[in-house]
C-alpha cells in the first residue's frame, strides 16, 4: 500500500467530508483543506529545501507533512484529535469525550476507514517515542472499538516525535504534539 497516496487521498477526502458534513448555514472554511500545501514552495525551516512540482510530491504527502506543510489539526475534519500527558498513553476524560463524538460520526459513516496516527513531543529519544506513539494510536483504536466501531475499519501508525505540529520549546507546544490524529484513508462519508 502506498501511504503517500493514501495520505494524499486523505487530505482530498477531508475536503469532501467537510462539504458533505457542514450544515448549509455554517460558514465555509476560510481556506480549503491542504490550502497551505498549494502555496508555492517557500524555503523550509532549514532554508535548503528545493522547489517541488506537484507531480513528484502530491499534496498531503508524508514529505509535506514532515516539512510542516500538512494542515495541522485538520480543523475541518469531523474527527478530532485527542491529547496525552507526558510519557503517557492513557485517555483522560476529555479524550474519551472527543472519541465518543468521533465514534458517533464513524458509526454514521460506515464506509469510512480511518488510520489513527500516534504522535509524541520532541522530548526523549526517537525509538522510545515511536513505541510510545504506537501505544497512543492503539489506545484510541481500542476505545473506538469499545464504542462500537468495527476494528477492521481502523488501522494505526506511529510517527513518534518525527512529525511535530508545533516546533517551539514550551509546554503549550509539546502538549499540541502529544496527540493521536484520525485520518480518513478511504470510503465516502454518508451524505
Amino acid at each position: 500500500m502506498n501511504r503517500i497516496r493514501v495520505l494524499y487521498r486523505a487530505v482530498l477526502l477531508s475536503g469532501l467530508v467537510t462539504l458533505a458534513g457542514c450544515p448549509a448555514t455554517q460558514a465555509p472554511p476560510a481556506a480549503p483543506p491542504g490550502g497551505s500545501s498549494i502555496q508555492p514552495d517557500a524555503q523550509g525551516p532549514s532554508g535548503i529545501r528545493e522547489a517541488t512540482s506537484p507531480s513528484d510530491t502530491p499534496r498531503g504527502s508524508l514529505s509535506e507533512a514532515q516539512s510542516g506543510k500538512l494542515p495541522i489539526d485538520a480543523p475541518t475534519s469531523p474527527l478530532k484529535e485527542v491529547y496525552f500527558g507526558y510519557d503517557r498513553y492513557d485517555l483522560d476524560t476529555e479524550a474519551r469525550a472527543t472519541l465518543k463524538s468521533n465514534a458517533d460520526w464513524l458509526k454514521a459513516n460506515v464506509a469510512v476507514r480511518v488510520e489513527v496516527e500516534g504522535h509524541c513531543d520532541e522530548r526523549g529519544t526517537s525509538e522510545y517515542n515511536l513505541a510510545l506513539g504506537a501505544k497512543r494510536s492503539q489506545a484510541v483504536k481500542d476505545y473506538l472499538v469499545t464504542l462500537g466501531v468495527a476494528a477492521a475499519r481502523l488501522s494505526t501508525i506511529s510517527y513518534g516525535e518525527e512529525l511535530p505540529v508545533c516546533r517551539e520549546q514550551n509546554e503549550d507546544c509539546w502538549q499540541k504534539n502529544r496527540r493521536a490524529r484520525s485520518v480518513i484513508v478511504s470510503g465516502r462519508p454518508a451524505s
Partner: protein
Amino acid sequence: MLRKGTLIVLGSLVAVLFSTRPFYSQINKGTIELSGTQRVSVAVSLLKNLGLPDDKRRISESIADTLVYDLNLSGWFRVLDRTAYIENPQTSGITAGSFDFKDWSTIGAEGLVKGGFALQGDDLSVEMRLFDVFQAKQIVGKRYGGRGGDSRRIAHKFADEIIAQFTGIPGVFNTRIAYISSTSGFKELFVSHLDGTGKQQLTSNRTINLRPSWSPEGRFILYTSYKEGLPALYLYDLATGRDTRLGTQRNSTMGGRWSPDGKQIVATFEENGNSDLYLLDRSGKTVRRLTEDPGIDVSPTWAPEGNRIAFVSDRSGSPQIYAMDVATGKTQRLSYSGSYNTSPDWAPKGDKITYTGRVAGRFHIFTMNAQGGEAQQLTSSAGDNEDPSFAPDGRMIVFSSSRTGRYQLHIMRDTGENQQRLTASGGGDTNPSWSPRLE
C-alpha cells in the same frame, strides 16, 4: 568482498614501520606522560616536500591539518598553533639530528610531529615521525604509500598510531558516523568522517528515516524508513550503493541493531500497539521473539560478546534500561535512578552502558556499569543531549545535542571530558551511530 571501491585504493596504501624499538615502554619513562585531564602539548609541523620541487602545499597542509584536528579531538593533546613555530619545514630535516629540538622546546612543545612527502604522478609516499622533544629522540616513525587523494586517510592512520604510542590502543580516526539529518527538510540518512569530510547523503526518499546501525565489518547500514508506508527495516550497502528492504514483516518496526558477529539482528516490532524485541537472521527472517510483555520494549543494544541485549522497557511504569540473557531470556533491570532512561549503547569492551536520562526536565548522557549500578552523568550543558553511541575503542562517545539551539552531533571522552561539536549543519542532526574501525 567488502568495500570494492576502497579496496583498490587500500591495496596501495601500505604502511611500513621503520622503527623497531619498543617506544611505548620508553614513553612512560620519558618526559611525555598522559595524566588525568592534563593534555600533552604537541607541535605538528607542515610536511617537507621530498619530491619534485614544485608547489604541493595542499598535501602538506591536508596531512598536517588533519593531524591537528584528530589530536585535538582525542582529548589527550593540545596542538600548538602553527604560527608560533620557528623553523622552516622545507629547509630543516625530518630525522633526529637534522633539526634543532630547541626550536620546539622553546615554544613549549613536549611532542613533535614531523614528516615528508613525495608525489609522483598520482603516487603519494609519506613518512611521518613522532618525537619526544625533551629527550630529543624519535618515538615512532612510519612510511605510507597511496594515491594523491589518500592524504587525509594517511594522516588519520598516523594519528591512530600516535594515540597507540601514548595509550597502548590505536585511535579511531579512520571511522565514520552514520546519522540522520534534516538539512534537506526531511530526515535522511547520512555518513561522514569525524572531521566532517566525506559527507554523503545515502537516502533521498523525502519521508522519514531513522536509527542507523553499522554492520560489524562496516559495509552495511541498517536503518528504519517510512518510504514504503509503515516503518520497515532497510539495508544500505556502502560498497554498491544498493538499498534493500530487510525482511517481510507486516508490522511497524522501531529499529534494529546488528549482532557483534554480524549473523543476527535484534529489532523491535509493534503488534497491536505494543512493541517487543525479536531476533532476526541476516536476511531479516524472524528467528525468535525475545520479549513478551504488555509494556513497551524497544531500543536494543548488544553486549560485545553477543550473549546479552540491553533494551528499554516501561514495564515498571517508566522507561528504564534492562538487560536480557539472549539464550535464557533471563532479564534484570539495570537503571534505577531517574524516571526516564532510554537509548542504551553497550560499550565495545563490555564494561559500561551509555544512555539518555532525564534530569530536571532535560535530557543528558549517562554511563553506568554494565551490571547496573550507579549512574555517572557526562553532560550538563544547556539543551538536551540524546542518543549516545560509543566509538569502537570505547573511549569516546558521539551524541546529539541541542546546546547550540539546534540538534547537532557532538563528541566527548567516555568520561564526559573534551566535549566538542562535530557537525555544523543548520538542520537537526540526530541518531548518530559510530562505525567500526574501517581501515
